[in-house]
C-alpha cells in the first residue's frame, strides 16, 4: 500500500515541479532586482552629485586689458597705500571693458558687459595693484574672475540652444565671451576660492571655509564631551552597574535616545541651552553640546559591545593578582577594547558631521562670512551650508552645493575608512 501511495505521490510531485521551479526562479529574480534597485539608486545619487559638483572646482578667468590710469582710479600722484586701497578699481574695470567692446553703448548693454566679470574682480585687482604698484599708469592684460553666469557659459553648462528668456546669459554676452575665447582671453583655473572663502551672495565668491571651521569646532566640542562621557557610561554599565531598576531605566533611556528624531535634540538645545542657560546662538559650542547628546547613545552602545568582547580571562587574571575592579578596567580592559570603542566613536562623529536638523534649531543657519576663531563665535557647519546653498536658485550655487556635498562625503568616507581599518585591526588580534 505504501509503495503505491509513494509512486502516486512521486508522480504528483514530478508533475508540479516545472511550475514550482519557475516560481523559484521568479522569486530569485525579485531578490536580484531588489539588490539591483538599491545599487541603481546609489549610483544615480552619486552620479548626480558628482556630475553637478565637478565643475565647481574650476573657475573661469577673463583676460582684460585694464587701463590703470591714475585718473580713472581717482588717485593723486604718489598715492599712499590707503588711497590705493580705496581707489575706484570697479570704474577702471568698467571703462576697460567698454574700451574692449565699444559696441556696448546702451545702459542695458553696458550692464550686461559689466556682468561678464565677478563683483569680486574689483578686490582681486586691488590686491594685485597693492602688490605691484608699478602697474599704475599702464594698461596691462590682467586676468579677472569671471561672473558665475559667464562661467557657466564658458563651462558649457548653458548653450545658445536654450531660449534666451530662459537663461541668464544673454546672446550678446555669449558673443563677447566667444570672442574672448577665440582670442585666448579666457582660462579655466582650479577654484581655490571655494576653499579659502566664507559664504557670499555671489556664487563665484562663495566658499566653504567658514563651514569647514564651524564643522571642525563643533565636532571638537562633540568629541570632547561625548567620548569621555560615553566611555565612562559604557564602563559603568558593563562593569559596575548593579542589576536593578535604576540600571534598567538608564538602559531603556539609552536605547530610546538612539531612536529619538534628531530635530527633537534641536528643540532641547533651543529650550535648554539657548533660552534657559542663555548660551550664544549660532555658536559651535551649543551645536557641539547638542550633537554630543545625540551621538552619546551610539558611542555608549558600541563601547559596551567592545568592552563585552574583552575576554573575561583578562579580567580574572588582573583581579587574581589583587588589582581592584577599577584598576582592572583602566589598565587591562579599556586598552584591549579601545580600537572597538574608537571605531564606534568615529562612526558617531561621522553621524554628527552629517547632521543638520538640530543645528537649524539653535541658529547655526546664518549667513556668515568671517571664519570663526573659537567655539563661541557664530559659525555654520558644512551640512547646513549645503542646506543654505541648496535654497539659492542660481545655477552657480547648485554647482557649489554639489561640490560642498562632495567635500562632506569625502570626509565621511575618510572617517568610515578609518573606522573599518580600526575594526579590521581589532578583529585580527
Amino acid at each position, binding site marked *: *500500500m*505504501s*509503495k503505491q*501511495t*509513494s509512486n*502516486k*505521490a*512521486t508522480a*504528483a*510531485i*514530478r*508533475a*508540479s*515541479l516545472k511550475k*514550482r521551479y519557475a516560481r523559484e526562479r521568479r522569486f530569485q529574480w525579485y531578490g536580484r532586482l531588489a539588490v539591483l534597485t538599491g545599487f541603481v539608486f546609489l549610483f544615480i545619487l552619486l552620479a548626480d552629485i558628482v556630475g553637478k559638483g565637478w565643475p565647481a572646482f574650476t573657475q573661469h578667468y577673463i583676460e582684460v586689458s585694464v587701463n590703470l590710469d591714475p585718473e580713472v582710479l581717482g588717485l593723486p600722484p604718489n598715492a599712499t597705500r590707503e588711497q590705493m586701497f580705496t581707489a575706484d578699481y570697479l570704474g577702471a574695470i568698467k571703462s576697460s571693458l567698454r574700451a574692449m567692446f565699444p559696441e556696448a553703448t546702451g545702459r542695458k548693454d553696458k550692464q550686461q558687459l559689466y556682468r561678464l566679470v565677478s563683483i569680486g574682480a574689483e578686490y582681486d585687482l586691488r590686491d594685485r595693484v597693492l602688490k605691484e604698484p608699478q602697474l599704475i599708469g599702464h594698461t596691462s592684460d590682467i586676468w579677472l574672475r569671471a561672473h558665475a553666469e559667464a562661467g557657466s557659459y564658458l563651462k558649457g553648462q548653458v548653450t545658445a540652444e536654450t531660449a534666451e528668456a530662459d537663461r541668464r546669459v544673454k546672446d550678446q554676452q555669449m558673443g563677447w565671451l566667444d570672442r574672448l575665447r577665440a582670442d585666448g582671453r579666457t582660462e579655466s583655473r582650479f577654484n581655490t576660492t571655494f576653499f579659502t572663502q566664507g559664504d557670499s551672495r555671489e556664487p563665484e565668491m562663495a566658499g566653504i571655509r567658514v563651514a569647514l571651521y564651524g564643522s571642525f569646532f563643533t565636532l571638537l566640542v562633540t568629541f570632547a564631551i561625548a567620548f569621555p562621557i560615553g566611555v565612562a557610561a559604557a564602563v559603568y554599565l558593563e562593569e559596575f552597574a548593579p542589576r536593578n531598576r535604576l540600571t534598567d531605566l538608564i538602559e531603556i533611556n539609552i536605547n530610546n535616545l538612539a531612536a529619538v528624531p534628531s530635530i527633537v535634540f534641536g528643540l532641547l538645545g533651543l529650550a535648554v541651552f539657548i533660552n534657559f542657560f542663555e548660551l550664544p546662538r549660532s555658536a559651535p559650542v551649543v551645536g557641539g553640546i547638542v550633537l554630543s547628546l545625540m551621538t552619546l547613545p551610539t558611542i555608549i552602545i558600541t563601547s559596551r559591545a567592545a568592552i563585552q568582547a574583552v575576554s573575561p580571562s583578562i579580567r580574572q587574571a588582573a583581579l587574581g593578582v589583587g588589582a581592584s575592579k577599577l584598576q582592572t578596567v583602566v589598565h587591562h580592559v579599556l586598552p584591549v577594547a579601545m580600537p572597538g570603542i574608537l571605531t564606534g566613536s568615529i562612526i558617531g562623529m561621522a553621524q554628527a558631521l552629517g547632521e543638520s536638523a538640530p543645528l537649524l534649531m539653535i541658529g547655526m543657519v546664518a549667513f556668515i562670512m568671517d571664519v570663526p576663531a573659537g567655539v563661541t563665535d557664530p559659525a555654520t557647519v558644512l551640512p547646513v551650508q549645503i542646506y543654505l546653498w541648496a535654497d539659492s536658485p542660481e545655477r552657480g550655487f547648485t554647482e557649489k552645493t554639489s561640490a560642498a556635498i562632495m567635500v562632506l562625503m569625502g570626509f565621511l568616507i575618510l572617517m568610515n575608512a578609518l573606522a573599518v581599518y580600526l575594526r579590521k585591526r581589532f578583529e585580527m588580534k
Partner: protein
Amino acid sequence: MERVEQQEPVAGSKGDAIRPPLDIQAHSEQKDYETIGTPFVTDPKMTARNVNVYYGDKQAITTISLDIGRNEVIAMIGPSGCGKSTFLRTLNRMNDIIPICRVEGEFCLDGDDIYADDQDTVLLRARVGMVFQKPNPFPKSIYENVAYGPKIHGLAHSKAELDEIVEDSLRRASLFNEVKDQLDKPGTGLSGGQQQRLCIARAIAVSPEVILMDEPCSALDPIATARIEELIDELKENYTIAIVTHSMQQAARVSQRTAYFHMGKLIEVGDTKQIFTMPKHELTENYITGRFG
C-alpha cells in the same frame, strides 16, 4: 553494480582475519582501510559507494560504502564527530545547503543516481524524508505542520483529501488520539516527545520511501523515547529507516543492522545482534563496551 561483486567477497572473507592496530591516531591517518562486515545487501533500497565528504579543506568522511536494505532499520553509531550525521545527510542531499560542503561518491535510490545532474532535490527529499535531532515543528498549528508537505507538493486536490492525509499521517505517527481535539493549536505548544512525533507525521505526510532520523530521541526523556522507538518499529513495515543514534541501547532495540563509524570512516557493519555481541573490530568493541564515546 560491478564493483559490488568485486568488493563484497573481499570484505567478507578478509573480515575475520584482520586485526587492525588499536592506536586510533595511527588508524585515522591510514589512507586505505577496509570496512569489516557486510556493508552490502542483496536487495538494497539505497546504495552509497566510495563516499568522501569535505567541509572546505577538512575531510569529514573518508571512502565509505554502505547499502541500506529495503524495509530495514539500519542504525548508525559512533562517537561524536565520527561523520555518521554527515553521512546520513548525504542520503537526501541536505549537505547541498551548506556552501562549503563537497560530496564525492555514487549514491542510488532504487537504482537512480541521486547526485545526477538531472536529479531533482525537491523530488528526492520528498522520497527520502528526514527527522531531525531537535524537534522542529513550524510555528504553525498542528494541522498546518502536517499539511505543509502535501500542500507544497500539491498532493491533495481537495480539503477533504488533505484532512485525510493529515489524519492518516498523525495516526501512523501514533499522535492522532492525543491531538485530535487541538489540531488548530500551535505545534510548538506540544511536549517534546509529541513534537518529535509531529515531525515524524510531517515527514510521513508526503509518503516518503525512506525516512532518515538524525538522533531523533537525543532531546527527549526516556518515556517519550520509548514511544518513538515503538513507532519506529511500526513504521518499518512500510518504510526504510536509517537512524543515527548516540545510544547503543536504542540501536540495539530498534535496528536490524548496525554500522559503526569512527573519525569519518565506516569501521564495521553487520547484524545488530552480532555487532553488539561479537564485534570484530577492536574500535567497535571499545566503543560498545564504553571505553570511549
